[in-house]
């Protein structure tokens, strides 16, 4: 497929630039001389999914009339990625918005409450983002307009430690790219 090399290049560029930038930042702060580390970058792409990792800055309202706040998040039950009725209703609205604004592309962020472990929640958050994406795609939105990313429990919307906060934090959250 044609997509593979592009993805490979994108990831490599990001890796090299990222590592270089980090190296520069580090040098200024930390003195200890470090011998050249052993493991170099090796990229092995298994799936031809067109995902350029760097997220560009959000589109400004002047360019597009749609902003992230126009979209509605889909909320979930504890340890579940099944779409509830209210989640489907929210995503129906999001699908309508995407149909009306064909120029808009979104990232669906998967989020979890704090009651799972770090690693499991990263997987669960991805399942939630994917469930929302699949629903939008089934509603006719092009898959290329929707990226997913999981933040697990690392970026909660509500800081509390009760069901009110947890319910807020279990979501697939659309962000305009």
């Amino acid at each position, binding site marked *: 497929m044609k997509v593979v090399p592009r993805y490979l290049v994108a990831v490599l560029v990001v890796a090299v630039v990222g*590592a270089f930038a980090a190296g520069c930042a580090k040098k200024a702060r930390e003195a200890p001389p470090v011998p050249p580390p052993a493991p170099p970058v090796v990229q092995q792409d*298994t799936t031809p999914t067109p995902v350029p990792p760097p997220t560009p800055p959000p589109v400004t309202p002047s360019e597009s009339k749609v902003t992230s706040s126009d979209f509605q998040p889909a909320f979930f039950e504890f340890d579940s990625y099944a779409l509830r009725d209210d989640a489907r209703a929210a995503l129906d609205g999001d699908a309508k918005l995407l149909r009306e604004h064909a120029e808009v592309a979104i990232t669906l962020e998967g989020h979890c409450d704090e009651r799972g472990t770090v690693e499991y929640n990263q997987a669960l958050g991805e399942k939630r983002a994917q469930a929302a994406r699949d629903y939008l795609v089934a509603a006719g939105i092009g898959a290329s307009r929707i990226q997913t990313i999981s933040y697990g429990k690392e970026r909660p919307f509500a800081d509390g430690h009760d069901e009110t906060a947890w319910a807020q934090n279990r979501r697939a959250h659309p962000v305009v790219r």
Partner: protein
Amino acid sequence: MTRRLLLSLLALALGAAAAAAQTEVRIDVSGGGRRIPLHCEPLAAAGDRNPKLPSTLADEVLASDLDQSAVFVVTRAWRGEQPFDVQAIVSGRWTVKGTEVTLTGEVRDFPARRPILSKEYRAPLAGWRAIVHQFADDVVLQFTGEPGIAGTRIAFVVREGRDKELCVMDADGANPVALTADRSLALSPSWSPDGSLLLFTSYRGGGGPRVWVMQAAGGRPYLVSGRPGNNTSAAYSPDGREIALTLSADGNSEIYVLDARGGSPRRLTDNRAIDTSPSWSPTGREIAFTSDRGGTPQVYVMERDGGNVRRLTYDVNYTDSPAWSPRGDRIAFVARTGSGFDLYVCRADGGDARLVVGGGSNENPHWSPDGRHLVFASNRDGGFALYVTDLDNRAPRKLDTGGRPAMSPAWAPRLAGLVTAQVSTPNHSNSGGKP
């Protein structure tokens, strides 16, 4: 019959009561038996007295190291008459000359007071803690045949606002060093078996979670796996040649094994459920992991080729974060409660699951290299911090991370502890030991 029924009902009720009052339930699972009583004398300060480095500081660290070894119970002062149950006396000389410090450590049996260990350690002033740790670890070695863990280090992440950065510190919380300043999310550190490298998950550079590696001494991270979707919870195999991790490049979180450079992916799990958090057995032949293929997350064990999968425990409803002990005989894991996780340890075959730490949420357990301790993250006293349990009836002790929220600890293998150059010259060889 009725009587037996009543008794079993009573047992059930007691069990429920115990479960309800689980804040301080701890059970000795170390199997090491009683601690050896040891008397630790103040170090004699000979030579120059350096006001910046009084021997009393070294006293404190030495006694604390020995006490926290989980091998000894330490007394510091004779109370009235001499305690008859002390088995040995630890003493030493602490000499500061110019920019160098020398520790001459001695262990004598009691009451005969014959020397069973005598060793001299030297270090630059700044590295004084390292030689105290090394002496403490040698004392443990003398009594158990295996060095202690005072000289080891622990990697972890600290929360800075919305971000998490990777850090490393001595096992007692001293000498903390920040390894990243990415203003991103660093998660799930894992040491290479030689203690030189750290694998970790990071969102650095934008995009999703990817696996990076960096030198534990600091430096720039290198990308190990940046495949589409999640690249998380990576762990080096015991021989350092492979990396087990979670990838979702096929659309669903599965466990893969890569070569140490991040290539040649080999998929171990294949189902629609979540599979994550691999932990190698010390032989490298098996991997414990978490899967919700049965409906709720549970810890499973499989062989390194993905075969022979079996569920580890059946009596706990929701389990996660397996950590295989370095001796291979135990697996630590967490089990969900109403608002968090309790810490459990079971045999490697899943039997004999026991609650080790309850109260608050206790997450990401990780074994010390000698298998006598578990370090874990907990909010048992409020915000998240790191704690160590000795797997006995002592309360977990909190590690000082400068008051910053800390989580995801990973205990380094033993070799990583030698942060400071030191010369260790035996003064004279062991003179026989006990009769």
